[in-house]
């Protein structure tokens, strides 16, 4: 499969270029540039890890911010007591376990129950944290005083994004990723082909949750003050969903295609039409659901598929004389 290895090589080169570019970026841009870079990276990781599970499986998760918030809160509570690396590992670990429990109880049921549960999960965790902080810890809201600069946040996020792409790529070409796509297409068939569908779903869901928590943990020092309504802001889940859907959730690179225009759009909307932000967000989302249901990457794929069917045995992009396939 020369095409496969060629696109793998291309992907690796792009990834390397991206990492080097982002790592050098802080030297060239000012504070505003850095904060935009953090936004891009944060949503790129969230949307890509969302799509890693929800894209192939078709299980729409509305719980992104639940795991993001878990990460942020881990930093708020333990950030000053443990070494930074341990805090990050712990954040990812807690999110993994929570996702495991949620997944085991809801991913065995019909998809719609999972969606509903995930819809309420962030609210649930927010209320529980609220309750704990106000009754047990004494006050809602915590200060995060950590000696972590914007540059360091960019570097950390870049590393996580690179890791996510490698993990995502490995999953996609493994039997786990293949099984997840089977589940998205027809769960009954997957089951009768010998796939342990609960295991696969819970595993990938928990893995994606761990990445989301990592992002929350890494960007938490930016806020200095953190309370449950900041850490578990449902708009984040919503924005991630829009980005992933616009880009196309069935491809690893898909969400990236959505993140770039959407972060710019959100930035523009929130600075120019702060009062209309929510309405415009909703309309943008509806436009995507109705007009590009499979995202930009889906459009590319269907073009490729049509081309392949008309010219079997050819490689896309080669300039050869057209002839009928039949």
């Amino acid at each position, binding site marked *: 499969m020369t095409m496969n290895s060629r696109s793998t090589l291309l992907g690796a080169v792009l990834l390397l270029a991206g990492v080097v570019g982002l790592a050098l970026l802080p030297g060239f841009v000012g504070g505003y540039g850095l904060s935009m870079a953090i936004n891009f990276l944060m949503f790129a990781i969230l949307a890509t890890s969302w799509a890693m599970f929800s894209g192939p499986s078709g299980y*729409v998760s509305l719980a992104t911010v639940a795991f993001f918030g878990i990460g942020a809160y881990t930093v708020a509570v333990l950030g000053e007591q443990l070494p930074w690396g341990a805090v990050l590992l712990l954040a990812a670990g807690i999110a993994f376990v929570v996702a495991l429990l949620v997944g085991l109880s809801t991913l065995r049921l019909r998809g*719609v*129950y999972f969606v*509903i549960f995930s819809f309420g999960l962030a609210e649930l965790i927010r209320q529980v944290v609220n*309750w704990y902080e106000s009754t047990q810890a004494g006050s809602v809201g915590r200060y995060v005083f950590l000696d972590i600069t914007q540059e360091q946040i960019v570097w950390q996020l870049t590393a996580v994004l690179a890791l996510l792409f490698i993990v995502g790529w490995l999953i996609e070409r493994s039997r786990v990723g293949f099984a997840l796509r089977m589940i998205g297409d027809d769960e009954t068939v997957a089951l009768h082909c010998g796939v342990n569908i609960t295991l696969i779903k819970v595993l990938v869901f928990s893995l994606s949750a761990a990445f989301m928590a990592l992002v929350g943990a890494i960007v938490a020092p930016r806020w200095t003050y953190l309370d449950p309504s900041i850490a578990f802001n449902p708009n984040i889940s919503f924005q991630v969903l829009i980005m992933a859907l616009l880009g196309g959730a069935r491809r690893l690179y898909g969400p990236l295609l959505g993140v770039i225009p959407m972060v710019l759009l959100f930035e523009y909307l929130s600075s120019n039409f702060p009062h209309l932000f*929510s*309405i415009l967000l909703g*309309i943008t989302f*509806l436009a995507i659901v109705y007009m590009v249901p499979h995202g930009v990457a889906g459009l590319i794929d269907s073009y490729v598929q049509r081309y392949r069917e008309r010219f079997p045995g050819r490689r896309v992009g080669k300039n050869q004389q057209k002839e009928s396939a039949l």
Partner: protein
Amino acid sequence: MAFLDALLNGLTLGGMYALVAMGLTLQYGVARIMNLSYGEFLIAAAFSAYWLFQVQAINPLLALLLVVPVAFGANWLIYQIMLHPLVRRSRDRGELEVNSILATFGLLFVIQGLVLLIFGSNYFSYTYISNVFMIAGSPIAADRLLAVGVAVVLGTALYLLLVRTRPGTALRAVSVDPRAAQLAGIDVRAASAMAFALGGGMVAASGVLVSMFTTFNASMGVVFTMKALIVVIMGGAGHLLGALAAGLTLGLVESFVAVYVAPGLTLAATFALFLIVLLIRPTGMMGRAGA
């Protein structure tokens, strides 16, 4: 007296949850639309009632006569324009559920944004009746009692409409099997639009009633949606009596948890209940077993 307080409070709360969920059970059970913007309609109706009462001096019961038909019409249009294309595009029920979740998720933010734009993010409330009754030594607010009374009337009317009339039977037929209903000469699209609009009317009515005794703000819709969804699934989609039983259960659990455990944990209790029901009986308390 804490026990009796909690019991009475739980029953009135549960009655409201049942009413709130009845509209959704029509929308999901008959029209097969999983409507995530459901609670936003409730909040929009609550704000309408507030505005009518404070600005136009129209009392909430009269407001029902205005708000409900408008909501009915608006929901009928939403089904015909926005949701029917999704029905046509979806291959099966599962796909329609996902598509409708996505579309109504967008709608949620549009409606919430509109309410925020007009009313801002503050909490609102108004006093329609300020009397308090005593039932066996426990106080209960008159406006709350009135709301529950109207809810019972509306719920009964809806039940009779579905069980005793021809159009109601058509809706129930679509709920059981849309394809077979079509073969029996029922216009499934019209019936679904009707069910969706009826559900929209019901949620608007419950919004007006809830506004009589609760404080509300623009971003509370999600919580109502969650509770309605939980009641519908616990009760079995399309089952009015199931919604009643599940609504009362939920109200009682919340009320007792608030009194005896911690008020901050009511939502956690709701979710725990939801999970327990799903794990024991995935088809709901009164749902049909094994289709």
